[in-house]
């Protein structure tokens, strides 16, 4: 155990002496955040009322909660469902309460909730604007705002139809806003303040940096020691070989966590990102993300004949992962088969869990699925990696 830490300590000491490397190491996450943060819009543009909605997303799962039993509320709910299914934009599911729907959002089954609140029919009957409340899954602001736009457009269609029929039998007592728009839509957020793109990007980049930093760092470190001959110095010592692997993984994890810390710090200081969830769960998720990948890194490094090949193998793994795991872009924009590949990658689960913890203040049970997937990944890959490494080191 001590030896494992000693190897980790040696690696970090060695790293701390490489001045240029330290600079690059710090600048990299700053650059990533700034570039991607500005490259993508603050929030997606909502669709202007046209009766026709163009969207990259189809059949997005949305909850409908009808809290009012009045006939008008039921009529509007039916119309909403009918338009949603005929346009194929939303897949509307009935929920008994906002609370139940919210739980499903956090668990990952829904993208938003539409609530027709109590008093809706009463408001309409007494000739006041009747409000519908829409709540989105804000872990992904770009997608949330587009879907929000779609949902509200549907209500605008219903509203304008009603408006037209109302105007035809105009009543002098009605107020103007009621006449033009008898139904209005407001957005209600899951967390108290509004989210921005950085809130989406920061957790993703944290997961990405920790994971890819560890992967390529581990590959480089093992391959370099093999090449420069120092690996022999460790193998010829009476220590178990897994201690070498685990010690090196620990050192790379520490590096990755520091980089993730830099990203989080910059995001909080300069980009207005807020942490809503528990910092403990945040760290746990990142650690699990790393462990799930360490095995893959060790296997690749063990097979690769030298450092350059090891690094190229890591690039080959990392690059598609960055786009397929929903770190930079929501994977819902991808075709189904690519989405399925993305969902096979552990980074998807690490980023998803981290986002839920940071943005939605998710609890441990909310991210349980992610945690299980990551643990299974880690166990399987490390189970394969350690014997592969031992075999490779005694060639």
């Amino acid at each position, binding site marked *: 155990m001590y030896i494992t830490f000693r190897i980790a300590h040696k690696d970090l000491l060695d790293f701390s002496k490489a001045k240029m490397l330290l600079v690059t190491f710090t600048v990299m996450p700053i650059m990533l955040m700034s570039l991607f943060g500005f490259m993508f819009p603050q929030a997606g543009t909502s669709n202007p009322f046209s009766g026709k909605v163009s969207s990259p997303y189809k059949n997005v799962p949305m909850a409908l909660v009808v809290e009012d039993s009045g006939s008008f509320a039921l009529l509007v709910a039916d119309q909403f469902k009918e338009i949603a299914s005929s346009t194929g934009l939303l897949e509307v599911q009935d929920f008994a309460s906002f609370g139940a729907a919210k739980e499903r959002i956090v668990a990952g089954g829904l993208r938003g909730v539409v609530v027709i609140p109590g008093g809706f029919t009463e408001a309409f009957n007494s000739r006041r604007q009747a409000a519908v409340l829409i709540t989105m899954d804000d872990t992904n602001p770009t997608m949330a705002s587009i879907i929000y736009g779609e949902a509200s457009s549907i209500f605008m269609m219903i509203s304008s139809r009603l408006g037209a029929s109302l105007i035809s039998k105009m009543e002098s007592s009605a107020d103007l806003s009621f006449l033009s728009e008898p139904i209005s839509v407001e957005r209600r957020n899951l967390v108290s303040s509004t989210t921005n793109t950085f809130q989406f990007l920061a957790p993703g980049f944290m997961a990405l940096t920790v994971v890819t930093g560890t992967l390529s760092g581990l590959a480089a470190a093992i391959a370099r020691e093999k090449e*420069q001959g120092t690996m*022999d110095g460790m193998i010829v010592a009476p220590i178990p070989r897994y201690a070498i692997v685990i010690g090196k993984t620990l050192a790379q994890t520490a590096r990755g966590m520091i980089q993730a810390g830099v990203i989080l710090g910059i995001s909080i200081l300069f980009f207005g990102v807020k942490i809503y969830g528990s910092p403990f769960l945040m760290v746990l998720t990142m650690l699990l993300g790393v462990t799930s990948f360490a095995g893959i890194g060790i296997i690749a490094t063990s097979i690769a004949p030298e450092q350059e090949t090891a690094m190229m193998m890591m690039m080959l793994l990392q690059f598609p992962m960055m786009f397929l795991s929903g770190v930079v872009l929501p994977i819902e924009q991808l075709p189904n088969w690519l989405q399925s590949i993305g969902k096979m990658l552990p980074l998807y689960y690490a980023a998803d869990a981290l986002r839920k913890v940071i943005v939605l203040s998710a609890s441990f049970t909310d991210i349980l699925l992610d945690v299980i997937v990551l643990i299974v990944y880690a166990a399987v890959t490390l189970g394969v990696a350690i014997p592969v490494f031992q075999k490779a080191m005694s060639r």
Partner: protein
Amino acid sequence: MEPVIETQELTKRFGGLTAVDHINLSVLKGEVFGFLGPNGAGKTTAIRMLTTLSEPSEGTATVGGYDIVTQAEQVRRIIGLVAEKLIVYPRLSAVENLMFFGELYGLSRRQLKDRVENLLRMVQLEQFRDMPVGGYSSGMRQRVNIVRGLLHDPEILFMDEPTALLDPQSIRFVRDLIKDLNHDGKTIVLTTHIMEEADELSHRIGIIDHGKIIAVDTPAGLKSKIGCETLEEVFLELTGRALRDSASNRVPMRIVMGRI
């Protein structure tokens, strides 16, 4: 004298290439065993197997009575390795390097502190102790590499070309150090391409070529058996004069450049 290293039909294959071919060898306790052979003859591969860095494809060997495969951990405790590729981290200082490797042998930091100081004094590097090893000269780096293999006071020391690329002063220093370590009771397996060095230091010499042991004897025994004055002549007589890995004879420069 009893043997401390014994190999039986020890063999290593890399794909279709047999690097070490059924060698049977014994190294006696307290001797300096000169292990000689042309480039690519299988010296380093044999040493890698004996130091547990590489597993044999066939055959067995014991080091200090322990099997190199099934009792690798015990073997590792009693051997020291001075590898041809220096085992030092260039960014770390001599002290940091030695403390790290020493701890891998289960030595406490207190124990090591004194030992590292003494060893650095022995190889005259105490005033450079905190400088990154990457900034050392080749001779200085090799001296750190040598004491790295001595940290846990091993019974058996494997030294793979310890004087390669060094200046005459450093070569002399290292040779004296080897004699000194041997006087101290250490068994030393030494590989070198400098025949006079092998002649000066070794009690017995084993010559390996194409993965096979072709001669084992004392330097004097080899010279009288083959009927040569020097060990270099013995070596060339036994292993041939043709350049390794070449199919043709040497073409003179004046022909290469078209001057003839």
